[in-house]
C-alpha cells in the first residue's frame, strides 16, 4: 500500500484546477500520480462514460500505471479500466482521430507508419530528389570535399535524409502542410534554399503517404489537434468525458502535446502535470522542451507543488547532483546559463521514518577519476572493477552507462572477453529483436516445412517463455537436437505410413515427453494449416500462440503491419520473401518500428549479479546499486567551447554548419516571414545541445543508489578533454573530501 510522505500528500490533496508538480529523480512521482488517480476515482462521482485521462510518455509506463491504479482501487464486479484511461500522447491522438477519421481526411482503415517504414519512404524521396539535383551539394560542401564522390553520393544524401526528417517533423509540429510550405517557399523566391529543398522532399514524402493511406507519428498528433480545433462540438464531448487529465513526464511534452491537453482540459478544466524539467532529454530527437512545463508551473492560476524528497541515492550522490544544478545556474558560458539547463528544486533526502530511507552515506563510494584514459584503457579498468565488485556483491545490481550505442557495444566486447556477466540494453532491444527473430523462425519453417533444422528452431520458439526457468534451457536444447535429426519431418507432423513418435518414443517409454511432443505436433500442424492466410493475419495468429507479453504482442503487430504493407507493394511476395524480410530485420540490428527501446520495460532488479550496459537515454526511470558513468569527455558532453565538436556539424560541410538546424531556421523564417542569417542557427544549436547534455549527465548521476564512478577518455583521436562540468564537479568533490564536511551546498 502506498504511504505518502508529506510532500506527496500535498499533491494528493489536489481536487480541481491546474496543478504543476516539479519532481526530482526517485521522488516517486509515478506512484504519487497513480495514487492521485485512484483517489480521484474513488472520491469523485463520475457519470457513466466519464473518465480520468492519464497521459504518459511511453507504452511501458501505460501498463505500469494501469497496474498501479488497479492495485489501489477495488473495482469489485466491474470490467477493468472503469473510469480511467491511460494513454501515451500517440495512443491518445489515435483515440481522438479514430473517433473522427473522416474529419482528418482519413478512412476507417488508415494505417500508422512506424519509424522504420516512414524512414524508408523518406529515404526514397530524398534519393530521388538528390538524383534530380546533383549540384545541390555544391552550396554546402567544404571546398576540400567538393570533388569527393563518396561525400557527394553517400554522406551528403544521408545528411539530407536526417535534415529532411527534422524539417518535416518541425513543419508538422508547426501545423504546416506540405502545400503551405511550398506556397511560402515560392513566395520567398530563392532566398531560403534549404527550405525549398525541404519543401520539395516534404511534398514527395506526403504524396507517398497519401498513396498508401497512411500517416506517420507526427501526423497522428497534428491531425488530432486539427480535429479538436475544427470540431468544437467533438471537443466539447471529449471535455465532458475526460473530467481530469493527469500528465506524467510532462517535461518531455512538446508544444503540440501541451496544446492538445490544454484544449481537452478547457478553461477551468482539471489538469495536473508532473515532471522533472531536469530530466528532459528528448529535445534533440523531438520538439519537446522543458520550458513548457516550467512556464506552466510558474503561471498564475496553477497550483505549484514540489516532490523534492528522494530515497533513491545515498546522500553524497544527491549532493553531487545538486552541485551540478548549482554550477549550471552560473555556467561559465553565459548563453548556456541563460537557458537554465537545470533548475531547482534540489534533491532532498527522505524524512525520518519514511518507508524509503536513503541508503547509508559512504563518500568513498563516489569516485570521480581525473586521469586521462584511452577509450580501451577506460573500458578495461571499468570491466575489471565491475568484475571484482559483482563477485563481492552477487545480490546487487550494477550498470555501465554510455552516451552512445557504439560505445556500449565496445564495452560489451570487453565484458565478454573478461567473462563478466552482463545484460545488454542497447540500440534495438533484445526483446524487439527476439520477437522479430521468433516470428522469422516461424515463417521460415512455414516457408520450408520439410527442413528438420527449421522445425527444431520453431520448437525453441514454441518454448521461448520457459527459457528463464533454471535448467529448462538444457532440456529444450536436448529435444531440439533430437528434432533436428529427424529425416522426414512429415513423419512427425503429418504421419502416414510411418509415425516418427511411434518409432523414436515407443508408447511405454517416457510418457511425459511423448505427450509433450504430441502437443507440439498438434501446434505445428495447426500452423501449417494456416499458411494460406494473408500474411498479416497469419502473423497475428502465430502471435496469439506464442506471445503473452504486451510489448511482444505490440511489436508482433507492428511486424504484421510492416509485412502487410510489403505485401501490398509486392503482390508477388510469398512466405519465403516475408521470412527473409524478418530475418533481415532480426539480424541487421536496425532500430525497428515505433516500439522504441523504452517501451520494453527493463527491470534492473531482475538482473542482480550482472552488469547492465545501456545508454543514458534508456536508463531514464531506472536505478542500480552501483553505476559507472563513462566517457564523460567534451565529445559526448560538449559545452560550446571553441574546440568542442558537435555531432550535428558534419565534417564535410563548410563553415561548421549544422544543416538540420539551418534548414529548420529557414522553415521558421518562412513561417514568420522573418529574416534568416546563415550560421546563427548552428551556433544556437550548440548551446541547446550543450544544455541538454548537462541534463543527460544529471540523469546519469541520479541513476546510482549506493556507488557511483565517473570516468572520461581521450576519444578516438586522442584529443578529447575531460568534460567541463565533470571538471567542475571533480574539483568541488575533491575540496569537499578535503574538508571532510557534510554541510555543503544544495541542502
Amino acid at each position, binding site marked *: 500500500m502506498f504511504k505518502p510522505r508529506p510532500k506527496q500528500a500535498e499533491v494528493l490533496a489536489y481536487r480541481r484546477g491546474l496543478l504543476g508538480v516539479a519532481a526530482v529523480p526517485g521522488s516517486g512521482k509515478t506512484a504519487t500520480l497513480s495514487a492521485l488517480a485512484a483517489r480521484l476515482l474513488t472520491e469523485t462521482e463520475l457519470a457513466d462514460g466519464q473518465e480520468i485521462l492519464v497521459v504518459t510518455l511511453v507504452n511501458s509506463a501505460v501498463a505500469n500505471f494501469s497496474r498501479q491504479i488497479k492495485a489501489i482501487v477495488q473495482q469489485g464486479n466491474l470490467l477493468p479500466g472503469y473510469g480511467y484511461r491511460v494513454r501515451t500522447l500517440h495512443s491518445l491522438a489515435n483515440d481522438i482521430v479514430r473517433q*473522427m477519421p473522416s474529419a482528418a481526411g482519413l478512412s476507417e482503415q488508415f494505417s500508422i507508419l512506424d519509424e522504420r517504414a516512414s524512414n524508408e519512404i523518406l529515404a526514397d524521396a530524398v534519393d530521388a530528389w538528390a538524383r534530380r539535383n546533383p549540384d545541390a551539394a555544391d552550396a554546402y560542401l567544404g571546398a576540400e570535399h567538393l570533388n569527393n564522390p563518396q561525400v557527394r553520393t553517400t554522406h551528403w544524401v544521408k545528411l539530407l535524409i536526417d535534415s529532411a526528417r527534422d524539417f518535416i517533423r518541425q513543419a508538422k509540429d508547426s501545423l504546416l502542410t506540405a502545400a503551405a510550405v511550398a506556397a511560402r517557399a515560392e513566395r520567398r523566391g530563392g532566398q531560403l534554399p534549404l527550405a525549398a529543398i525541404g519543401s520539395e522532399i516534404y511534398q514527395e514524402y506526403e504524396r507517398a503517404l497519401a498513396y498508401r493511406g497512411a500517416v506517420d507519428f507526427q501526423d497522428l498528433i497534428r491531425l488530432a489537434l486539427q480535429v479538436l480545433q*475544427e470540431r468544437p462540438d467533438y471537443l466539447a*464531448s471529449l471535455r465532458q468525458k475526460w473530467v481530469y487529465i493527469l500528465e506524467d513526464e510532462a517535461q518531455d511534452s512538446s508544444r503540440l502535446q501541451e496544446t492538445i491537453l490544454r484544449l481537452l482540459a478547457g478553461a477551468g478544466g482539471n489538469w495536473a502535470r508532473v515532471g522533472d524539467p531536469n530530466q528532459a532529454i528528448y529535445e534533440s530527437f523531438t520538439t519537446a522542451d522543458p520550458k513548457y512545463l516550467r512556464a506552466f508551473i510558474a503561471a498564475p492560476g496553477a497550483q505549484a507543488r514540489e516532490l523534492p524528497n528522494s530515497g533513491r541515492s545515498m546522500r553524497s550522490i544527491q549532493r553531487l547532483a545538486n552541485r551540478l544544478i548549482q554550477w549550471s545556474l552560473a555556467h561559465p558560458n553565459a548563453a548556456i546559463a541563460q537557458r537554465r539547463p537545470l533548475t531547482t528544486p534540489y534533491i532532498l533526502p527522505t524524512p525520518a521514518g519514511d518507508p524509503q530511507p536513503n541508503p547509508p552515506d559512504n563518500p568513498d563510494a563516489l569516485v570521480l577519476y581525473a586521469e586521462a584514459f584511452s577509450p580501451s584503457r577506460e573500458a578495461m579498468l571499468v570491466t575489471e572493477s565491475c568484475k571484482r565488485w559483482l563477485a563481492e556483491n552477487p545480490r546487487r545490481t550494477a550498470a555501465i552507462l554510455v552516451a552512445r550505442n557504439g560505445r556500449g557495444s565496445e564495452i560489451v566486447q570487453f565484458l565478454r572477453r573478461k567473462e563478466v556477466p552482463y545484460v545488454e540494453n542497447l540500440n534495438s532491444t533484445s526483446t524487439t529483436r527476439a520477437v522479430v527473430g521468433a516470428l522469422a523462425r516461424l515463417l521460415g519453417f512455414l516457408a520450408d516445412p520439410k527442413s528438420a533444422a527449421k522445425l527444431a528452431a520453431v520448437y525453441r520458439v514454441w518454448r521461448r517463455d520457459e527459457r528463464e526457468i533454471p535448467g529448462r534451457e538444457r532440456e529444450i536444447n536436448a529435444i531440439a537436437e533430437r528434432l533436428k535429426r529427424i529425416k522426414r519431418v512429415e513423419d512427425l507432423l503429418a504421419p502416414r505410413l510411418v509415425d516418427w513418435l511411434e518409432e523414436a518414443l515407443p508408447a511405454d517409454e517416457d510418457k511425459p515427453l511423448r505427450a509433450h511432443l504430441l502437443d507440439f505436433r498438434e501446434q505445428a500442424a495447426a500452423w501449417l494449416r494456416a499458411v494460406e492466410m494473408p500474411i498479416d493475419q497469419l502473423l*497475428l495468429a502465430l502471435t496469439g500462440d506464442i506471445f503473452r507479453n504486451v510489448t511482444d*504482442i505490440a511489436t508482433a503487430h507492428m511486424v504484421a503491419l510492416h509485412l502487410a504493407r510489403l505485401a501490398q507493394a509486392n503482390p508477388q511476395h510469398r512466405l519465403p520473401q516475408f521470412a527473409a524480410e524478418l530475418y533481415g530485420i532480426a539480424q541487421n540490428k536496425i532500430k525497428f518500428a515505433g516500439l522504441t527501446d523504452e517501451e520494453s520495460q527493463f527491470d534492473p532488479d531482475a538482473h542482480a549479479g550482472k552488469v547492465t550496459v545501456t545508454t543514458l537515454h534508456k536508463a531514464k526511470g531506472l536505478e542500480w546499486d552501483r553505476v559507472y558513468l563513462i566517457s564523460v569527455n567534451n565529445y559526448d558532453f560538449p559545452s560550446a567551447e571553441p574546440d568542442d565538436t558537435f555531432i550535428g556539424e558534419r565534417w564535410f560541410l563548410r563553415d561548421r554548419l549544422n544543416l538540420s538546424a539551418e534548414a529548420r531556421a529557414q522553415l521558421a523564417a518562412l513561417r514568420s516571414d522573418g529574416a534568416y542569417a546563415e550560421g546563427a542557427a548552428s551556433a544556437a544549436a550548440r548551446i541547446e545541445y550543450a544544455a541538454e547534455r548537462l541534463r543527460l549527465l544529471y540523469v546519469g548521476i541520479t541513476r546510482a543508489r549506493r556507488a557511483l564512478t565517473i570516468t572520461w577518455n581521450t576519444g578516438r583521436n586522442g584529443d578529447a578533454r575531460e568534460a567541463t562540468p565533470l571538471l567542475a564537479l571533480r574539483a568541488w568533490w575533491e575540496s569537499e573530501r578535503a574538508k571532510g564536511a557534510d554541510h555543503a551546498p544544495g541542502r
Partner: protein
Amino acid sequence: MSALDSERPAALRPQQITAAALDEKIWLEGGAGSGKTSAGLARLRQLLAAGVAADSIALFVPQRSLAEPYLQALRAESGYSGGIVRAYTLGSLARQTVETFWFLIAEGAGFAQPQALPNFLSLELVQYFMTRAIEPLVLEREYFHSVRIERARLYSQILDNMNKAALVGFPISEIGSRLKAALGGGIEQAHIFDDAQTCALEFRRYCLAHNLLDFSLYVQLFRERALMLPAARARLSRRFRHVIVDNVEEDNPASHAFLEQLLPGCQSALIIYDSDAGFRRFLGADPENARRLRQYCDRALHFGTSQVMSAGVSALSAQLSQHLSEADAPLERESDAAPALHWEAHRFHPQMVDWVARQIAELIEERGIKPRDIVVLAPFLSDVLRFSLRERLAKRGIRARSHRPSRALREEPAARALLTLARLAHPRWEYAPAAFDVALALMAGIAGLDFLRAKLLADTLYQRGRLLPFHQLRSAAAQDRITFAIGERYDQLRAWLDAYIEAGGSDAIDIFFRRIFGEVLSRAGFGFYGDAAAGNTAMNLVDSARGFRWSLEFMRRYDDSLDLAADYARMVDRGVIANFYLRDWVAEDEDSVLIAPAYTFLLGNRPVDYQFWLDIGSEAWSRRLYQPLTHPHVLSRGWQPQAVWTDADEAALNRQTLRRLFLALTRRCRRGVYLGYSELSESGYEGRGLLLECIQALLRAAARESADV
C-alpha cells in the same frame, strides 16, 4: 384502416393474414421473431391455392437472400398454375426493365451509341472501369492529395456516392455540395468533396460514351425514363398484380418510390416491416421512409415483439436499451439481468478466445445445448479470429461455420488455387506461378495432401513452369514419402493440365475454371469434392471471369490487343478486380456454431439460445464505417441539404445504432449472452467503445444495488 392488433398469441398469426380477402392490401409490422415471414408465406400459399396465376405474383425484397424462405417453400411445393413466382430486388428489376426498353431510352439518356447494346457492369467491373476512367484525372490534377486512403477504396466511395444519389433521388451533380455543406465547414479537407464531384461526373461521362451501365445509372434510368414509358408500366402492372414485400425497412427510397407508384394499381399487397431492424442504412436503407407505404394499405396488423426471450434476457434487453434511450428514465429493475449475462475479463485477446471456446464446450457438453443454438458475434470478423476460434473449437470436437459477406476473391484459397492452375495451364501467358503457390494449389486441389508433402512435390516436380510426372521423383523412397495414393491423384491433375495444353489451351478463362472444377477438382479424391464453400468460391470466380470477359469483349472495339484470359488472371492477382464480391449463404453443416459479424447474423433472422459478443471494447459495435468521401446520412433522403453534421448527431446516431442492435440481438436470444472482453484487442489497441460503456454502467448499477441490499 382497422385498429392495431398486437395481443394475440403467435400461433394464430398466419391465420390473421389468410383471413384477409384476396384483394386486400395489408401493412404488417412486428418485431424480430414475431412470425412475420411465416405470415408472408401463408399469404403466398393462400394466393396460389386460390388459383392466382404465379406469374402475377411478385416478391420484392431489398436483397435476394431475403427471398430465400419463400423460394425454398415454393420449390418444395408443386401444383400451382400460371408460370412461376418471381423475386425482385430494385437492382434486378431496374436492370431487366432498362435492358428490355433500352432502345426506347438510350438516346434520350445521352448514350453515345444508342443503337448498340448496353453493358451492365457488375460490382467488380465497375471498380475496374472506374480505375480506367478517372485514374488519369486523379493523377494529373493531384486530386485527393490531402486524403490518406488507398486508391481502390477511394474509387469505391465515389461509386457509393453515385449509388446513394440514384437511390435517394437527387442528381449526381449535387453530391459535392451536399457533402461540403454538411461536413466541410472550415475544414482543410473541404476541397476533396469538389474532387469527388468532378470524378463522379467524369465517370458518368465515360459510361455514357462507352455504353456502360453501373448500378447508379440503371437505377436512375429506371426511375426517370423506363417508368415513364406506358409499355413498361403496363408490363410491371401485370407482373406485380399481387405483391409481397418483405423487410421493407431495409430497402431504400427508390424502392419505396417505385412501390408507391405501383401499389394503387395492385390487386393485393402484403408489406412486411420489421420494427426492430433497419440495419442496412450504409447501403441506403431508410426505415422511416418505408412507413409511407402504409397509407396505401387497406389495413394494418401488428405482431408485437419476440416471444423467445427468457426473463433474464428480457431484463438485459430492457436495461441496455434503456441506458441508451434519450429519455432519462430510471433503470427498470423488475427482473434481474444477471442470470442471463456471463463474462470474464482478460488481458489479451487470445486468452479471451480460449475462454469463449471453453464456455461453448461447457454449454454443449454439460448443458446439452445444440451447436446450432449458439452464435459467436463480433463487429468485424477477421481471419485471425475466425481461424483461431475454429481451431480451438475443432480441438474440442465442436463444429463451427462462419459467413462473411464480402472479401477479396484472391484471398480465398480455392480461388487462388484455381488461378495458379490457370497459370500452369497457359504457358503462353509467360506468367508461371511461384513454386510456393504451386504447393498451395496442390494442397487445395488434392484431397488429403498436407502442406508439407505439397511443398515436397512442388519443390521437386515443378520445373520451368511445368509439373513433371510423379514417377520422376528420384527414388522409390521419395515417392514413399508422398504416398502412392496421393501420387496417383497428382498425376491425374497433371495429366489433365497437359492434355489441356496440348489441345491448344485456348478456352475462355471462365470456361477453363468451370472445366477444371467439373472434370477434376470436384471429383472424389480431389480438394473441392464435397466442399460446398470451395465450390461456391469457384462459381464466384467463374461468374466474375465471365462478366469480365463479356464486358471486355465489347471493349475490344477500342483495343483489339486485349488477351482477356491472361488479363483477368493478372488483374485479380493485382487486386484490381474481384476485390469485393458478395458471397452467398453457403449450405454448410447447419448443426454447428455460427461465427459471424453481428449484422450478418441478424439478416439471417433466426433466434438462438446463447450469443457470445466478442471484442466488446470495440468501437465498431456502435459506429458506422467512416469514409472521408461519403456519408450515408448526409446523402440520405431525410437530410436537409444545407444542414451541418455535428458531433452531437454522430453521438446520437451511435447510441441509436447500438440500441437498435441490442434490441435486435436480444430478441433473437433465448437464454443468455456471454461477453468476450480483453483489455487489448487482437491488434493490440485498447478499445473503449460505447458497448463497453453500457455494460460497465449496467454492472455498476447492479453492484450498487447489491451494496444497497
